[in-house]
């Protein structure tokens, strides 16, 4: 049982009135007035269309929006006239609107949603991002059905993305998580998830809720916990993910600090789990794959290469405290090279040596991960240069090779980890 409740007396009263539900859909929000109406519409339609016989609750956990997010959520009607109802549920879909409880941030929003779902004995809980522009009612089906009908505990999303998008996922998080825990979860930091009631109860038992995982650390924490602790994980193909505001305006080192920092922290937590795993296996995927045209993506390669070169020139003194001589030499050679190509083996060794240094606390962990930013930009630039004329299928094959490099170099990581 969860150790304590973070819910206000008002919410507890609402829960007492509702008593029980089958499905909870959580929508954390913060200044998403432009998109939350559309998200609510898609969720309502999805619940009505695909789960007419189940009782469902929509929980909006808001972080104190200053725009009209709250007004839109309050105004939205589950029986929206714009929706074409194929069938009507005997129980109307209800709403709970609550501010974050406890610490601010995505973790607090998730905590509130999970606590409400747990108190209502929900069998399944889906979380969707309130900034989505591409969400459809089918997303709710794909996130909830594998749990209710197939007995999975965690549904991770799988999106159709531009070949240059998601470079932290593609170059660090996905291949490293796959090599460590042996499961091929393509978007471990996707942002939209489905969970079983059992897994929610387990999450609530954890002492993570007062830690500051930032906006981006929560997703990888949930996915890794589910995989490493042996819960049944599957993927659902949701199609393109178009978000109202991208992450390009956010400080990259801040994103890295939270995402990569959480991956490294979890490596320490689940050390015993990943040490014994070799190779990897695919997860079952629900939903039909399809292709659509995606907006072009602008990437300033020159700026990234310059950032890498400056990083090598100015930060090598910091890196030499924990990077091997070979890796450091490789980085110097790459910085001086005319043809810029950050090889897979060098990149993977760099990441693994950073992970081991993080574990051994070779220096302040914040500094350690933030100093990785120019290297990540260098790798991204190299990938963009290499993949400029490649097709989506070729790119996916390219990622597969990178993943295999991570898997092959896992013994190298283990050796660094022990010493």
């Amino acid at each position: 049982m969860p150790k304590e409740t973070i819910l206000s007396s008002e919410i507890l009263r609402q829960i007492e009135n509702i008593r029980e539900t089958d499905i909870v859909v959580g929508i954390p929000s913060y200044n998403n007035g432009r998109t939350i109406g559309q998200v609510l519409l898609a969720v309502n339609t999805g619940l009505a269309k695909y789960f007419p016989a189940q009782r469902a609750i929509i929980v909006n956990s808001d972080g104190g929006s200053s725009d009209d997010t709250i007004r839109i959520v309050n105004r939205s009607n589950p029986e929206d006239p714009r929706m074409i109802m194929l069938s009507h549920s005997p129980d109307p879909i209800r709403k709970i609107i609550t501010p974050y409880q406890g610490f601010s941030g995505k973790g607090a929003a998730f905590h509130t949603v999970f606590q409400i779902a747990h108190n209502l004995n929900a069998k399944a809980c889906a979380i969707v991002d309130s900034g989505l522009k591409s969400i459809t009612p089918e997303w709710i089906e794909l996130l909830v059905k594998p749990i209710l009908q197939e007995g999975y505990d965690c549904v991770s999303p799988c999106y159709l993305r531009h070949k240059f998008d998601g470079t932290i996922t593609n170059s660090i998080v996905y291949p490293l998580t796959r090599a460590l825990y042996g499961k091929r979860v393509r978007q471990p930091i996707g942002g939209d998830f489905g969970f079983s009631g059992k897994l929610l109860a387990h999450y609530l038992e954890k002492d993570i809720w007062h830690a500051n995982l930032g906006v981006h650390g929560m997703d990888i924490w949930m996915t890794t916990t589910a995989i490493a602790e042996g819960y049944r994980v599957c993927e659902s193909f949701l199609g393109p993910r178009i978000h109202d505001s991208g992450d390009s305006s956010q400080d990259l080192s801040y994103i890295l600090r939270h995402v990569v920092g959480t991956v490294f922290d979890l490596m320490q937590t689940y050390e015993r789990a990943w040490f014994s795993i070799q190779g990897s296996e695919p997860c079952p995927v629900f939903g039909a794959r399809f292709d659509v045209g995606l907006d072009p993506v602008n990437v300033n390669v020159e700026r990234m290469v310059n950032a890498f070169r400056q990083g090598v020139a100015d930060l090598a003194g910091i890196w030499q405290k924990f990077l091997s001589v070979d890796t450091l030499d490789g980085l110097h050679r790459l910085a001086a090279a005319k043809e810029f190509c950050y090889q897979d083996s060098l990149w993977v060794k760099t990441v693994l040596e950073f992970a081991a240094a993080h574990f051994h606390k070779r220096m302040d962990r914040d500094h350690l991960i933030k100093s990785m930013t120019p290297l990540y930009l260098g790798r991204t630039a190299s990938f963009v240069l290499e993949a400029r004329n490649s097709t989506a299928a070729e790119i996916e094959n390219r990622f597969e090779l990178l993943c295999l490099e991570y898997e092959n170099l896992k013994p190298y990581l283990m050796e660094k980890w022990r010493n």
Partner: protein
Amino acid sequence: MRDFFEVAVLEPMRRLYEQLVLFVPKLLGAVLLLFLGLFFGWVAYKFVRRGLMAMSFDRFCSQLGLTTFLERGNIRKPASELLASGVYWLIVIGFFMIGLRTLDESAMSQVFARFFSYLPNLVVSIFIFVVGFLFSKFIARSVLIGAVNAQIRSAKLLSLSVDLLIMIFTLSLALEQLGIGKATIVATFSILFGGVVLGLAIAFGLGGRHLAREFLERRLGRKTDRDAEEEERFLHL
């Protein structure tokens, strides 16, 4: 003649003997105290050294850059040995001072009192120096990483300036605690600090007009031409 011999020779010798009888035990006591100091110092040295080695103190100092700093000053001993030596000498000098006091209380009591009243100042100033040093290295590294990530060309210079400023401030605090050249240090620090700030302001004003304009425009929410050109619709996650 007999009186003369008694007054001129025997009496001084008797007095010398009496003084010797009084002084020799004091001397022996002082020597004993010195040896005790050497012994306790040695025990403390071993204890501190082993304790610090068990806590990987040398690696910690190396990570903080203290070892490199010492090497620059041609001090090639590990930090744990230096600290243990410091404790050793403190104990030896302490015992030596007590020994001296037993030899001549009236003459040494003032020195003794001054030495022991000065000791806390020494410890505090060493503490200020160590904390300041660690703080300067930490902040300098933060500035370096932040500046490199923001692609500021002179990131190293910026970091070095911050390091230097904090170290000057730390040194002035530590020396002030020791009571060395109080007025001179305050004046030197004020001139140096003021000079550096003024220099930076002039340099930024003259050399970084465009940077300042871009900074202000970004602050005020207006996009610069360069921003518009370089805007990336690029998702890292």
